[in-house]
């Protein structure tokens, strides 16, 4: 019991040194010190620590901190929000939008759907050609290998410039190397555009939506911290 009481008064010694104890506590500590040499040595140790700590060089922040602060609080929109760089939010939103767009584009593949069928299975592969409408300069889009016993094929051309019309033809390659061309078919941009725009819009909403939610979440956690402080 006595040991516990000794320890409790010794735990007050740093605050005896910094003079923040109440009069009652001060009396108890002084009574303890008067009968305990070790406590007196500890007080001296605390005084040396106090001297060392208080003699550390003081630095002052740059005056720009005050200027920046005053500029921020004078902004009409200055509210609880932590100062975030808008360019960072824009960049993060754009990056998320692009990622979502790529994923959705690969999943939905909004584009021109070409379908063709055969009477007999005798081709080894099919080449799909595309040209802008009004041009005869066909370019190879892709080559699809033929599958045994399969008579119906389809291909989605999703890499299209919005608003542009295209023409297509399919070249069937026979086993002997001879090829046969299909007739030319037209595609109209207005058939594809709504789907593409819907995907772009959805991606923008999801991308920037995530950024907004994250900012709101940060704001909410800051608000909780401030409420905790008050």
């Amino acid at each position, binding site marked *: 019991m006595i040991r516990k009481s000794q320890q409790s008064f*010794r*735990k*007050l010694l*740093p*605050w005896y*040194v*910094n*003079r*923040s*104890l109440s009069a009652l506590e001060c009396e108890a500590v002084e009574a303890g010190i008067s009968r305990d040499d*070790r406590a007196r*040595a*500890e007080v*001296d*140790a*605390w005084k*040396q*620590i*106090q*001297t*060392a*700590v*208080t*003699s*550390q060089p*003081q*630095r*002052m*922040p*740059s005056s*720009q*901190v*005050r200027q*920046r*602060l*005053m500029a*921020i*609080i*004078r902004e009409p929109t*200055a*509210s*609880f929000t*932590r*100062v975030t760089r808008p360019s960072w939010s824009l960049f993060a939103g754009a990056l998320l939008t692009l990622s979502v767009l790529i994923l959705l584009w690969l999943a939905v593949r909004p584009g021109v759907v070409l379908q063709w069928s055969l009477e007999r299975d005798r081709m080894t592969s099919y080449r799909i050609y595309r040209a802008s409408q009004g041009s005869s300069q066909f370019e190879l889009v892709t080559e699809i290998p033929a599958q045994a016993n399969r008579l119906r094929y389809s291909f989605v051309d999703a890499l299209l410039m919005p608003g542009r019309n295209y023409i297509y033809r399919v070249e069937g390659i026979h086993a002997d190397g001879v090829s046969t061309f299909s007739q030319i078919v037209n595609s109209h941009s207005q058939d594809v555009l709504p789907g593409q725009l819907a995907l772009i819009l959805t991606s923008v909403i999801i991308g920037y939506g995530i950024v907004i939610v994250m900012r709101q979440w940060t704001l909410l956690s800051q608000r909780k*911290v*401030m*409420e905790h*402080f*008050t």
Partner: protein
Amino acid sequence: MNHNAAFYDIKIVEMDKSISSASDIYLLRRVASGDELAFGELYQRYHGSIYNYVLRLIHEPKEAEDLLQEIFLAVWRGAHRFREQAQVKTWMYRIAHYQAISWLRKHRPVTPFDDMTVINLEVPEQVTFETWQSDEVRKAINHLSPKHRAVLELAFVHGMAYGEIAQVVGCPVGTVKSRMSYALRVINGKLKAADFVS
């Protein structure tokens, strides 16, 4: 016209005088209502001590300036939520402590000290305290973890009572006292190990 201008000048001087002698709580109430002048006075009173407190915990002058800005922005934005259950100074230091510790958590490895260690390390009865040099003590203090340094700083540089320190660092009074005792043991141990003490 000239008379009016002179009268106006005198009025401004009087207003500044009243601000500079106002209590912290009065200033904070005015800050809560959007008074920039009161905010400027609070900044003037505390920016140096809070900056040095944060700087001694994180040891990065530029980052400490950024944190100082964040701390005073938090004061500006949170002034209307202050419920006057603590001193304004304690409240501001608590925000500063929180910001500094959050920064350290993000930028520094986890400190090996924890409160369990403190509880298990009792002061041996035979420990002796010698005469130390301030420089040597300061070196030894640098071996303390930020949370132990924080308690020392708040007690000796900022003259806080243990109850106030507990409010600032957000832990029980017993933990504050234990951290102080632990800090003394570490400093004493470091000084002896480094042969600083004769």
